């Protein structure tokens, strides 16, 4: 029912290569990272020194009743606190800013990369996946830069520092404490591994839960209309239940783990007090040392637990990094030529398809040996059954896809020799299912042609008699559209798309089923406008409704990817072949006159 969980396909990309890639992104900020490492050093020293100072206070000054010495120690302690506090502030800032900068770069790189990918890429990758790449995956990389790297260093330094200090103060006591530490370390790493598996499962269930939810919300009207709420809810409950169980499992593991670590920690403390106490009585170890030890033992567990976490974080970050780099390394297949030819500012619009073969994949040809010529200013209709390949012709012309054999040329220049933007600038397409962006009607019509004024748009709309459809919206052309605004009907969207193309004013105009959901009267108005626009402009019209293409200079009839007939309406009728049949279908019960 749900989109299959993203496959955790482990590519050939090794971990080392990934790390290298991640370091590349951190490179511009290596000074910041280094600075923050330096600060980390200070912080570690400051926090290690504190228990030691108390030890000195107890063992030296209190015993000697040295007030003045105590005051000096107090001042040193105060300075340590200040330094540590200030260092913490700057370290935190630097580190997390760096993280932000790096993920900013990652996001820019990803978005830029997506924007140069060909259409096929967007067909193959669900939107949700691409969004996750840019948002969630990058976010989990942030952890790597802002927490893992520096904290790893910090924790290792802390551990080394504590062990060194303990050994310095008393080797015997250190060994006593360390009786328990291997056990704790083992337990910690074991539990973290179990937890990691649980968390992974939890995450994957959560993501299916979310995508199930998203889909059902957007298809809610269909669900309600089919009275299927119950069934859909059942499935949701199943997922929810699964999520609950995985979450509970995590809680149970945690509630076993945390007390047991506490237990071992306390055992270690008990050993310390027992042995240390006896030694103090013996006089072999000072009281202050035992006191400092109790602090260090407690301080010891924190970095240990942290280290176990780091391991998981690195794993998670690597998984995200792998997906991100995989995305970044998918090369676009439709790219600008190395030595592009330039199209003139205005093209004439002479279009030639020479024996073009095209398949979306492998050898499943959608277009077979398509061969035709459209001259400057001509209007050409393309008809054929669903799946005959009509839309594919447009996709090729605009280089949304590349054909495999043959050539397509515009004004005698092979379209593969031209820069993509240069080509698309000359070709306007009015789509059947035009996407509406969230924004006002104005924004949607002018898109990012910011120089186009509102007046121009209204003028254009009036010129084609479709102004009333927009001016009667609640706030006219300033009505907000999109998810949180007014929803346009299919017909209104097509009219909007029509205006878009008028504003863009391209040299070649293509209508892809652009009037399927518009009523006849409005269509009539649009047709008239179209006739005006298509004067001196190469125009291709794809339509099911034959009325739309009656006036075309040439009609191309496609069947299963091949051109079966070509000519104007009358010629094709005279042929009494495929087109004739199409017309008869349309005019059931009417006599189709054949003129000679």
């Amino acid at each position, binding site marked *: 029912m749900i989109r299959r969980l993203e496959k955790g396909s482990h590519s050939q990309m090794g971990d080392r290569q990934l790390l290298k890639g991640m370091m590349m992104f951190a490179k511009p900020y290596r000074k910041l990272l280094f600075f923050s490492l330096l600060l980390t050093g200070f912080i570690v020293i400051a926090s290690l020194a504190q228990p030691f100072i108390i030890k000195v206070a*107890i063992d030296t000054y209190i015993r000697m009743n040295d007030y003045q010495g105590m005051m000096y120690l107090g001042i040193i302690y105060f300075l340590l606190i200040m330094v540590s506090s200030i260092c913490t502030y700057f370290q935190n800032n630097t580190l997390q800013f760096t993280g932000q900068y790096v993920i900013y770069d990652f996001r820019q790189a990803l978005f830029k990369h997506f924007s140069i990918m060909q259409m096929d890429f967007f067909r193959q990758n669900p939107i949700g996946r691409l969004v996750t790449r840019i948002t969630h995956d990058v976010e989990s990389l942030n952890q790597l830069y802002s927490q893992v790297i520096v904290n790893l260093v910090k924790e290792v330094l802390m551990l080394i520092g504590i062990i060194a200090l303990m050994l310095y103060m008393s080797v015997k006591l250190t060994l006593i404490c360390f009786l328990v530490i291997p056990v704790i370390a083992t337990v910690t790493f074991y539990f973290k591994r179990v937890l990691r598996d649980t968390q992974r499962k939890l995450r994957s269930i959560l993501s299916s839960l979310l995508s199930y939810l998203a889909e059902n919300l957007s298809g809610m009207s269909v669900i309600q209309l089919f009275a299927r709420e119950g069934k859909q809810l059942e499935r949701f409950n199943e997922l929810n239940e699964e999520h609950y169980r995985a979450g509970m499992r995590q809680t149970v593991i945690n509630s076993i783990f945390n007390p047991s670590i506490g237990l071992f920690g306390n055992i270690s403390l008990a050993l310390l007090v027992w042995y240390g106490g006896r030694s103090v009585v013996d006089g072999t170890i000072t009281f202050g040392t035992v006191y400092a030890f109790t602090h260090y033992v407690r301080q010891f567990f924190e970095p240990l637990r942290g280290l176990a976490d780091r391991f998981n974080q690195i794993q998670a970050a690597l998984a995200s990094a792998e997906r991100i780099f995989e995305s970044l390394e998918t090369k676009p297949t439709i790219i600008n030529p190395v030595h592009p030819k330039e199209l003139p500012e205005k093209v004439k619009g002479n279009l030639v398809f020479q024996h073009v073969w095209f398949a979306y994949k492998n050898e499943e040809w959608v277009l077979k040996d398509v061969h035709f010529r459209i001259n400057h200013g001509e209007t050409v209709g393309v008809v054929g059954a669903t799946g005959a390949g009509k839309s594919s012709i447009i996709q090729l012309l*605009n280089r949304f896809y590349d054909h495999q054999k043959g050539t397509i040329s515009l004004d005698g220049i092979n379209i593969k020799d031209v820069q993509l933007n240069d080509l698309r600038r000359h070709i306007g397409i009015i789509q059947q*299912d035009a996407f509406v962006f969230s924004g006002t009607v104005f924004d949607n019509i002018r898109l990012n042609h910011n120089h186009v004024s509102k007046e121009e748009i209204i003028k254009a709309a009036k010129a084609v008699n479709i102004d009333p459809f927009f001016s009667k919206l609640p706030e006219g052309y300033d009505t907000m559209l999109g998810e949180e605004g007014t929803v346009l*009907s299919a*017909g209104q969207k097509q*009219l909007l798309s029509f205006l878009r193309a008028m504003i863009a004013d391209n040299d070649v105009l293509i209508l892809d089923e652009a009037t399927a959901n518009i009523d006849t009267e409005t269509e009539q108005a649009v047709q008239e406008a179209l006739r005006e626009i298509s004067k001196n402009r190469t125009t291709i019209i794809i339509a099911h*409704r034959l009325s739309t293409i009656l006036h075309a200079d040439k009609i191309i009839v496609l069947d299963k990817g091949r051109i079966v007939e070509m000519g104007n309406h*009358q010629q094709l009728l005279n042929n009494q072949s495929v087109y004739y049949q199409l017309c008869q279908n349309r005019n059931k019960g009417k006599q189709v*006159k054949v003129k000679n």
Partner: protein
Amino acid sequence: MTSRVQEFCSGISVIKTYIQEQEERKKFTNDNQANVEVNKQLIRANSLFTSLSQGIVGLSYLISIVFGSILVMKSTISLGDFVAFNTYLSLLIAPIENIGKVINLLQQGKAADNRIRHVLSTEPTIQDEEGVTSITSIQGTIMIRNLSFKYQRSKESALKNITVSIPKGTSLAIVGKVGSGKSTLVNLLLRLYNPPKNSIFIDDHDIRDVPLKTLRSSVAYVPQDNFLFSSSIKENIAFDPNPYENEQVFHAARQAHVYQDIMELPEKFETELGERGLSLSGGQRQRVSIARALIKPSPIIIFDDSLSAVDSKTETNILNTLRTQMKSRTSIIISHRISTIQEADQIIVLDKGEIVERGTHHSLLKQNGMYKKMFTQQTTEFLSPSLNGRKILIKKRRRS
């Protein structure tokens, strides 16, 4: 930022066609930068808090150590007291920090709780009202009496004074301009919106007294946008909650003339559709959506402009199949194409929310009004291409 990327991906074909990549990148950069700025502010505040609280904790240690040791030296307290005090202090810090966190969490939780309560307490405006009848099946007679309807936010009425009666087993076709109220009428019949009381009757029951479940399970509907779920094609066609045999699914697919298309797919009926069923073409999606409605043995069937993406040959085939089926069903068809609707038992023409013409195909043609105009526009043009100078153009070429 999420919505920006989402929009970018969904609108990619528009963006590429109009070469908007550069601008979209600019917009994204702005979002991205804004995001970094917001995060930086948050980080600064956080760091300040961490370092301050660390400093304060440190100071309290300092005081307890310095004063404690002086007190010990003065023998006011014992060394044991001093050590115990310091240890308690260190134990105290974690709970105090936690209290802060807990208070924060409680506030967050309260806000979330409020939001959830708010959502849960929103009453659905469309639900079975008190005094709803307990009918569980519908025959299919629809009566609409003086129906006027206005959407909440709009100024004008979407429908005015609509009166139609559709006897069981007959068909009604609705034609009219974009925005003339066709879909509104259907939405009311399905109770996606609540019609005023005493305006729509089904089998002599006010539609608002019919349980929603009964109503909706008695209506098969083919919507304008063909939303498909990301599951197998089979599951999509058998979307109606009742159980269906494979054979029934195949049959529905055949009736919607999509069987052949499906059989050509790699996994046939088990083919999984991607997000929003994007791997099918528009026409195929529409026909799957039709099959989804046809499989339902409901007394009423509604097509909302839902043959627009299929070519006329397929359309004729589907309509022929339907005609045999529709004899037992009450059907409502919205379309712009006369060919789709000319066989309907009655046709109404809507304009600005009002019925301006009604009758059968033939009687409407005699009325010489809007319908006739539409018909002429759609058909006669095939016969003689003689509009506005085009004829001349063709003649010219013939000569040459």
